[in-house]
């Protein structure tokens, strides 16, 4: 890996998952707020936001979501309502599991898929870096410098593009996993896509390094 590529990958790893995750969360939140506004046009933004998030709570915890929404009515000022709603959001998104964490994940495939998709990039990244470092020490990526290529610069560009796409797949696991976790059973496929995307990118990256 050259320095520019390393910088890009590090920056992408640091910021892309956060940016994509934020965009996904904002989009889901906004859709929920819009849906809520159609039902309750008189409700303010903290109320709509809390209603939107608590609607996604698992069935056995939905009572607590209703409790939070009812309690929000006690807060009159704009700032206190926002503070209450924002403080409730993490609980509504990730309510405490009824059983132990392992039983919880095993019992709910969608959550397990989501959690796995979220964990894959951070877990896979050191592995990929280690593999890349080993390949670099062994001999780098001579594939693009091969004399059989008539235009090495174009080959290098394609090579970088493939790596970028691989990186994109790798990073997509985190937001997809979060989105799957957020929406529960109905959006389990998002988490599964996240796992496949990240898993594929790890395998593909290693294959690229091996064939080079």
């Amino acid at each position, binding site marked *: 890996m050259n320095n520019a590529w390393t910088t890009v990958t590090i920056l992408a790893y640091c910021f892309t998952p956060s940016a994509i995750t934020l965009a996904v969360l904002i989009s889901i939140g906004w859709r929920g707020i819009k849906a809520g506004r159609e039902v309750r046009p008189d409700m303010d933004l903290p109320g709509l936001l809390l209603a939107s998030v608590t609607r996604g709570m698992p069935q056995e*915890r939905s*009572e*607590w979501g*209703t*409790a*939070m*929404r*009812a*309690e929000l*009515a*006690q*807060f009159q000022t704009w700032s206190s309502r926002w*503070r*209450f709603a924002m*403080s*409730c*959001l*993490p*609980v509504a998104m990730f*309510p*405490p599991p*009824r059983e132990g964490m392992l039983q919880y994940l095993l019992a709910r495939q969608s959550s397990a898929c989501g959690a796995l998709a979220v964990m894959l990039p951070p877990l896979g990244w050191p592995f990929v870096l280690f593999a890349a470092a080993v390949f670099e020490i062994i001999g780098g990526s001579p594939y693009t410098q091969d004399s059989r290529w008539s235009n090495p610069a174009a080959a290098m560009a394609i090579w970088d593009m493939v790596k970028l796409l691989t990186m994109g797949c790798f990073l997509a696991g985190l937001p997809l996993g979060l989105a799957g976790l957020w929406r529960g059973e109905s959006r389990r496929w998002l988490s599964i896509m996240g796992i496949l995307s990240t898993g594929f990118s790890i395998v593909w990256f290693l294959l690229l390094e091996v064939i080079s």
Partner: protein
Amino acid sequence: MQRRRPPSPQTAAVLLALSETSGAWRYGYDLCQELDLKPGTLYPILIRLADRGLLETAWETEAPAGRPPRHMYRLTAQGRKSVAELAASTRVKARRIRLEPGMEGAS
């Protein structure tokens, strides 16, 4: 096998606050104000206590017009027993600290 971990200071505070008004229903808002806890801290505690059968929950039956019924909480018999055990273990710990050599001067 069920784990027996001592409750966190926040959980202990919630249990003690609920035990002070034994039998009376409490609201989430009141508990937040009294204990200076954020809802993001209080609700997971309440959820876990209810799961363990230490907390009884109910919905307000006579809510004022235009306001949704509120969720109310109070300790169950098991919860009260748990608070008594917690208080007893705290007293034992305090006694042990007083009996520690070199701690005689400590009040």
